[in-house]
């Protein structure tokens, strides 16, 4: 489903307007000031709103998940996507992912992990824990574009499910089962293709960095 189709869909009654809005709000988590600057620009140039934080703890605080009730005032916009570095002091990206998936409020937010290290068990562990995707650093514009399309596609599918009427609830349930099983099979093929992508992108990288 193309991004354009998302924008033409009817807003479901009582539905979340941010689903059909073209601007995702992304929370980017990275302890490196250089990487924060780069990911912020990559996301902004891809028409996303961006909030950057420097640690998993700050990310939880921003979301209001740290148990400190006073922090919820910080969040002024719904977060549609979390992009986090894996290796961070304190809470790793994996720890952050787990905390988000354990939360009844935030578990639906897609989480993408970034890492400079192409370690297959690490990638598999993150995907098993519910990460949407895994990006190998240094992150490129093509990576961000791909992620954005993936997220918008998923949000569009959620929106479609919401718009079914009660009369067709049975059919809807069947649809849900069919779409969730097709999305789980597509996510497992995504896992495979992501793994393939990591290997092929690694090959590409070695081609690019060989003496010119």
């Amino acid at each position, binding site marked *: 489903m193309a991004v354009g189709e998302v924008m033409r869909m009817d807003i479901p009654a009582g539905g979340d307007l941010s689903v059909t809005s073209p601007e995702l709000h992304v929370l980017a988590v990275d302890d*490196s000031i*250089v990487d924060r600057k*780069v990911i912020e*620009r*990559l996301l902004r140039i891809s028409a996303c709103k961006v909030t950057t934080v420097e640690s998993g703890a700050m990310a939880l605080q921003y979301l209001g998940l740290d148990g400190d009730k006073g922090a919820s005032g910080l969040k002024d916009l719904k977060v549609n996507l979390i992009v986090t570095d894996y290796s961070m002091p304190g809470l790793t990206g994996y720890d952050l992912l787990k905390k988000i998936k354990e939360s009844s409020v935030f578990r639906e937010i897609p989480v993408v992990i970034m890492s400079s290290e192409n370690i297959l068990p690490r990638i598999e562990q993150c995907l098993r824990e519910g990460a949407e995707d895994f990006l190998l*650093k*240094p992150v490129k514009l093509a990576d961000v574009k791909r992620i954005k399309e993936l997220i918008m596609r998923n949000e569009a599918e959620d929106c479609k499910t919401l718009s079914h009427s009660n009369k067709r609830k049975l059919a809807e349930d069947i649809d849900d089962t069919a779409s969730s099983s097709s999305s789980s099979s597509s996510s497992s093929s995504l896992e495979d293709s992501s793994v393939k992508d990591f290997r092929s992108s690694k090959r590409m990288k070695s081609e690019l*960095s060989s003496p*010119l």
Partner: protein
Amino acid sequence: MELAQMQKSLQDYTKSLFLEGVLDSQFLQLQQLQDESNPDFVSQVVTLFFQDSDRILNDLSLSLDQQVVDFKKVDPHVHQLKGSSSSIGAQRVKNACVVFRSFCEQQNVEACHRCLQQVKQEYYLVKNRLETLFKLEQQIVASGGMIPAMELGF
């Protein structure tokens, strides 16, 4: 110097940095992210890299100068520098960090000292080259010219 000449010098200079392996394609990625709305993006990121790296190299020197070297402290610093140099396309710095990390793993203090010197050398080289590159760009802009887009034909 004529504008066209300055622009040619800049292109040749940039090309040489790629050919020498000082910069890799990630630097081109950063240049693609620069436009009229963000005309100083590359120099901003690179400036952050310089500040960050100065700090890391300082910490590394201190850590390695200890009587008993704590490699649990040294390795994260090298990992950080490897990451940030990779993010801006400073290929030789990144490669030097990769070697450095393998000696950290072996807990080889002597070799780590040598690695630190190598990393510093590569860092000062790329710093020098990039500062020259930005000066060339500034001269062009000051003369009312545009920075030529990087040709990828090499």
